[in-house]
């Protein structure tokens, strides 16, 4: 196991290096002078020149890249032009809010997706099975930012049941925290619920055909024990992988959802950086998100090995 962890970490290094390279190169894509684009049309030549110097654009790309990596080694992702403060500090302040939103979305995904998938597998080709298929199809087809707007109109404006936006920290008001996360959490989770339910359903169908399930039934175990103890445990192996992927997607989906619901998380910070053409902040946000996903995938692999002892991580 330890060897596997070390090997996976080593394998992640070139990918992480390329990730940093891509994030660092984003500013190179800007046509013309990035400083002029960032400063805006009303900026004077002196302001643009000052910004160019501040961003290091008056120096060769290789030199800037080296400096960026040096900073990265010290946890320094540069300086945000918009916020006038270090990128690392700005991102770290927002991470808990995004984690809370993605975590809540994941909770909804699991709480709805796994039971729906299990029930659909136990009742194949019935209305509940069709419902799972429909939720999955709607989930992948409805744009979640538009769904958010419609949920705001319905539950925030017309019925006035839930807040239409904003964020209340858990420490200030736990009930308010849950209330303000319900709509954005559901908007984020809808896509994942259908996908998780379909994977759970397919795996459950496979497991229910296995001999040990038939044996458990044959020896007279009650149905809830057969499903809960024998089948569900084995269904969880592929489902954990999907949950890991889902969490990554929930994290990335927060850019749009946080913008729509005015939630002060990392996603909204990144969206504002994009609107304001704050390239150091865009680079830092991209890097943190991608690196988190690479490490998340590693974590899922390890969990996979823990859940299923048959999974061997030999060299082959």
């Amino acid at each position, binding site marked *: 196991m330890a060897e596997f962890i070390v090997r996976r970490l080593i394998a992640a290094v*070139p*990918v*992480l290096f*390329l*990730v940093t*390279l*891509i994030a660092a190169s*984003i*500013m190179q*894509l*800007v*046509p013309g002078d990035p400083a002029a*684009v960032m400063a805006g049309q009303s900026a004077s030549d002196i302001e643009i020149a000052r910004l160019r110097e501040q961003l290091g654009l008056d120096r060769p790309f290789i030199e800037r890249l080296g400096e960026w990596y040096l900073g990265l080694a010290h946890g320094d992702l540069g300086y945000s032009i918009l916020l006038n403060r270090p990128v690392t500090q700005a991102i770290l302040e927002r991470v808990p809010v995004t984690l809370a939103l993605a975590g809540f979305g994941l909770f909804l995904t699991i709480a709805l997706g796994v039971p729906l998938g299990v029930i659909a597998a136990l009742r*194949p*080709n019935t209305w509940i099975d069709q419902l799972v298929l429909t939720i999955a*199809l*709607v989930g*992948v*087809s*409805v*744009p979640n*930012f*538009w*769904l958010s*707007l*419609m949920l*705001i*109109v319905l539950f925030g*404006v017309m019925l006035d049941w839930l807040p239409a936006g904003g964020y209340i920290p858990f420490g200030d008001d736990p009930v308010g925290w849950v209330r303000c996360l319900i709509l954005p959490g559901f908007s984020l989770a809808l896509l994942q619920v259908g996908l998780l339910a*379909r994977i759970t*359903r*397919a795996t459950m*169908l*496979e497991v229910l055909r296995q001999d040990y399930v038939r044996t458990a039934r044959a020896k007279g175990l009650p149905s809830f024990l057969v499903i809960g103890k024998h089948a569900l445990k084995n269904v969880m192996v592929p489902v954990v992988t999907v949950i890991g992927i889902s969490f*990554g*997607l929930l*994290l*990335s*989906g927060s*850019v*749009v959802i946080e*913008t*729509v619901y005015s939630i002060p998380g990392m996603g909204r910070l*990144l*969206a504002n950086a*994009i*609107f304001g*053409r704050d*390239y150091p902040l*865009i680079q830092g946000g*991209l890097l943190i*998100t*991608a690196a988190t*996903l*690479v490490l998340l995938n590693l974590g899922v692999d390890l969990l996979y090995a823990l859940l299923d002892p048959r999974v061997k991580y030999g060299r082959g």
Partner: protein
Amino acid sequence: MAAVEAAAVAAAAPARAAPLWRRLLRHRLFVTGAILFGVMLVLAVFADLISILPPEKMQVRFRFRRPEWAFPLGTDNFGRDIWSRLVFGAQLSLAIGFAVVIVTGIAGTAIGLAAGYFRRLDNLLMRAMDALMAFPAILLAIAIAAALGPSAINAVIALSAVYTPRTARIVRSTVLVVREMEYVQAALACGARHGWIIWRHILPNSLAPLLVQLTFIFAYAVLAEAILSFLGVGPPPPTPTWGNMIAEGKDYLREAPHIALFPGLAVAITALGLNLLGDGLRDVLDPRLRVQHG
């Protein structure tokens, strides 16, 4: 004798092709998808004929009209006819989606073929693809589009850059299987050139999963283009794209929710149609990939 054989082959060809279409037409989800997508395609193609007004024509005295006879889907905050903007929006949104499919199809196939067939290139190409895929698709697309500047072409570039690695991975995995087939090994043993083997054997046998993948990419691209436009990094306003229309409507949700409602529905119907088409194609072309039923 040769003529008889040729006639037999000619007669056999359509007979072999027919079951595919029949199977597709028997697939309920595929037919539903084809109808939904077909409707949006007709709207886009005949936008000039079926629109009521030019999409950018403002009529201030008709602002915020609810759906009525003169304006079937109502008007927006500038008094522009939402139906007309919707059908012209279909033109641009579908054109961007189609362009992404073409670029992604060509680039993804080229990279996937090269990585799968020439094993020396595999590690280099696929590590680069892995790195691109490490970024969340929509986030990377937003960042690239933001760097390049808001325009339809840049949206195509950004979305193609994001979806090409996913396509390349699918093509590579098919190529890895096909290149080990006996007929490919036989062709190699006969001294056939790599280019000929790829063109004659590998590519045709990789088309089915590629076609399925590209159908889904079309759906993702339509959804992603709407997000780019909504966030202000797609084609700039007043260009009528569905994402722009939703973004304009979000400030008037209380008094005129219909402004954001209809373009969102258009995106959802298009994406649903394409997803159903993709599901149908996958079920018919590659039943092994189908999620089990019963």
